[in-house]
């Protein structure tokens, strides 16, 4: 994925949304804001909250920022990456290496959460341990 592709994906989704659901005003703005971000200079949650309030007069919480990014990823398939450690924040993926790194960190985070869940259940409710299954 090159630098130009993220702009193509964004514009293409504005014209003809993949799942037929148009981006909301908030989603359009957040995705546009993140187009100018990068792995070296991601846009943090607090910054998104502040910018959205100034531009759209919509009050967001950290939770709603997360939900918005999730919708952009899941419904519109935008490759928006995130990092928790400094510099923390969101940005559009601009190379296959960036995506690979994100996949690794996302996977280990998910595995860690599953492992935690498994430990809790096995220790306290062993009868449910065999029922642990995960669907998309």
């Amino acid at each position, binding site marked *: 994925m090159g630098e*130009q592709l993220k702009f*193509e994906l964004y*514009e*293409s989704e504005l*014209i003809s949304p993949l799942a037929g659901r148009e981006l909301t005003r908030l989603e359009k*703005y957040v995705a*546009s804001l993140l187009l100018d971000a990068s792995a070296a200079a991601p846009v943090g949650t607090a910054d998104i909250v502040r910018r959205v309030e*100034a*531009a759209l*007069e919509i009050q967001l919480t950290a939770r709603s920022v997360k939900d918005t990014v999730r919708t952009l990823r899941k419904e519109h398939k935008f490759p928006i990456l995130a990092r928790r450690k400094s510099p923390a924040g969101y940005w559009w993926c601009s190379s296959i290496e960036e995506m690979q790194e994100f996949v690794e960190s996302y996977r280990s985070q998910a595995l860690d959460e599953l492992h935690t869940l498994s430990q809790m259940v096995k220790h306290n409710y062993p009868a449910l341990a065999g029922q642990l299954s995960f669907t998309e």
Partner: protein
Amino acid sequence: MNRRPNLTLKQQSIADGLVKQFDIDAERIYFLNEDNPEEPWLPAESLITIARKSEEFQTIDESFDQYIGPLNQVVHRSTVITRAGRTYTSSGVATIDERADIDAHALAAGRAVRSALTAAGFNPLRPGGVVTLDLHLQAGAQAKPDEAQSRVADLRRIHFIAERKGLIKLLPGRQEDRSDYKRFLIEKYETPTAAQFDGMQRASLINALEQLPDVEEDEFREVA
């Protein structure tokens, strides 16, 4: 005041009001917006005169920026600094011979100044505003220009015009054929997307699209 034969009574009344209040050149008040025929269009000098009278600005500059050869366009740039010290810069674009009655440089300069003033929250000529001539900055104006928001707004306008010009076609099943639009971008700007353009390039694209003829409405397009 002298009646200009090409103006409607309402347009004449708006023009007279502007001349009386701001002492600007009556012959250079135009009404170019076909969708809103009562919206006046003023050249850069007149806009600057009005903006200065508002005392909301420290500085209002306008100058020629560049000529875009392949598109035969001229670009002017305007920068305004508000009393509070906020700076807004915008571009205005016009195609050479775009109109027979107004020079392309005057068109581009007027567009640049108006765009910069509007970004600063000053738009006394907005629809409905001309009657009251509100010379104060709008409270909602952003502390600084927001590129993310400008991109969204400009792209909406670009896609609307591209559809009107037949470059983006609505297909049955709510799908859009944008192949002609992409071809146009590649041919004129050597890129398949306008989302990566800056404000000046988006203004150039809007102007270039507006020069294309409108397509005839096809009332049977939904019929396979």
